[in-house]
């Protein structure tokens, strides 16, 4: 019997495949067992203190093997998440990871306090200090070890449950940020979020996005995300969750071999709604062929 279950600190997951924030909807028709049976957990869309309308203008732009997005954290706010979304989501039986987007300290404290009311329905908080698509806060916290540590400590004061920190690949010293998060009480690190990019509309002779820069994701970023996973997992002793461009079973295996305990899938879900199932089929075939019984035995093997 192949064992694909993993533990992210104290959070047991039946599958190493987690759906990344911002890439799965709340519509009931998506939370069917036949689609989600192969998924370990689903991250919520970023939650902010107040509802946000997101960015004007173009929001997505395809590139060869990649995707630029400038959504700008459109969401209905923490009160709607706690009062309306969580009661519905908990009935589906898939662990929910609350992706909390950090703008400022007061907002963060209020969000975590509200999440405490539904702590038994939230498998972990994923502290997002890494969104590149908003002017206020967010990524500016994640590029600095000191500010990351401050943010993590603030959540830790209120939140006793599992706490993951979603890092930005824009941090000049990713190991420093990772260690700061670990030392301040993070239980796991998600490595990483989107990469800063941009596009020019050559016909229109102007930048495609109103904010000029946008977040880059998809298969094109996989080698860079893999490198970060290797680096960060060597610098900390808490579990690392690989995120960036994963789109096949072999990508998942590479992330695990580089030191990740699980992975998050984002953009890949857009082109294949059954990607978790298809990835796991490939991983199981590999494990059978190679006589690997427990997926977790492969964590970091490429470094040994």
């Amino acid at each position, binding site marked *: 019997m192949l064992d694909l279950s993993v533990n992210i600190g104290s959070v047991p997951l039946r599958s190493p495949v987690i759906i990344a924030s911002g890439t799965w909807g709340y519509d009931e028709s998506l939370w069917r067992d036949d689609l989600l049976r192969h998924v370990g957990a689903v991250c919520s869309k970023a939650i902010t203190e107040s509802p946000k*309308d997101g960015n004007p203008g173009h*929001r*997505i732009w395809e590139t060869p*093997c990649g995707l630029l*997005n400038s959504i700008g954290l459109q969401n209905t706010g923490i009160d709607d998440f706690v009062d309306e979304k969580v009661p519905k989501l908990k009935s589906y039986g898939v662990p929910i990871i609350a992706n909390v987007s950090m703008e400022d300290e007061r907002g963060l404290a209020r969000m975590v306090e509200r999440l405490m009311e539904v702590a038994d329905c939230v498998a972990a908080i994923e502290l997002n200090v890494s969104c590149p698509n908003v002017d206020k806060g967010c990524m500016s916290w994640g590029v600095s070890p000191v500010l990351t540590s401050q943010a993590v400590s603030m959540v830790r004061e209120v939140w006793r449950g599992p706490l993951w920190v979603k890092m930005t690949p824009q941090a000049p010293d990713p190991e420093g940020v990772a260690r700061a998060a670990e030392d301040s009480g993070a239980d796991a690190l998600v490595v990483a979020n989107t990469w800063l990019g941009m596009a020019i509309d050559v016909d229109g002779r102007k930048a495609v996005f109103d904010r000029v820069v946008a977040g880059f994701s998809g298969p094109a970023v996989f080698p860079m995300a893999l490198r970060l996973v290797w680096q960060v997992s060597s610098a900390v002793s808490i579990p690392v969750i690989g995120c960036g461009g994963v789109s096949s079973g072999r990508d998942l295996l590479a992330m695990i071999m580089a030191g990740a305990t699980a992975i998050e899938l984002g953009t890949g879900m857009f082109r294949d*709604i059954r990607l978790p199932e298809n990835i796991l089929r490939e991983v199981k075939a590999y494990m059978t062929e190679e006589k690997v019984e427990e997926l977790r035995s492969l964590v970091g093997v490429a470094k040994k």
Partner: protein
Amino acid sequence: MSGNVDDFPCKITAREMVGEDILSIRVRCPSIAESIYPGQFVLLRDPSWGMDPLLMRPFAVSAVHGEDLELLIKLVGRGTSLLAGRSVGDDLVVRGPMGRGFSSPESSPIYVAGALGAAPLLFARQVFGAGRFVLGVPGEGWGPFVDYLEARCPEMEVFSDDGSIGVRGTALDGLEKGESHPVYACGPMGMMAAIVKLEPLSCQVSLESRMACGIGACCGCVIETIQGKRRVCADGPVFNLEEVVWNA
């Protein structure tokens, strides 16, 4: 979003170029064919694309024939040009049925189409019944497309900007001010925005937007409405004319 959205491997069962850059194809997809409703759409990907193009492409369904979906596709860029190179028997991946369609009319509707906007309206006509069908096209080069549509919809009233096909003018020249029949419209944004000035008693419009997921997850396809930003893929693509903020 209604129904059970899923990705289905499907085969192309028929293909025909209707003019220089418009492709008509049929894909066999029984489960979508039996559940799709007029105004809903599908997303397509060709397995031969690999990761580039990365995203699926959205298209309206223009008719359902038994287990087959019929689509009308204008070749505008990479994805659609690659699709035009595929043959009968080739594989596609089809996701659907997506979005909210037209609501069923209380009296005979008027269909108002700008060019490829005819696609969802032909399917609406197939399900809701014939009514006036007004089509506007640019002119030169659109003859074969118009012939193709007229073969399916003999009552079609055709306008062209340059007067080379049908009557000179736009589809809106076929509408009366204060139209009392329900209007179902699909075409360029400018055309649909202009319908506002005609003050029809009721009008539903089918909109387009660039899409990443098509399932309501990414918020990449939003438009401005009087209730704030709404997702074209899951809250639409059909909206009431008066809901949409046209100058956004």
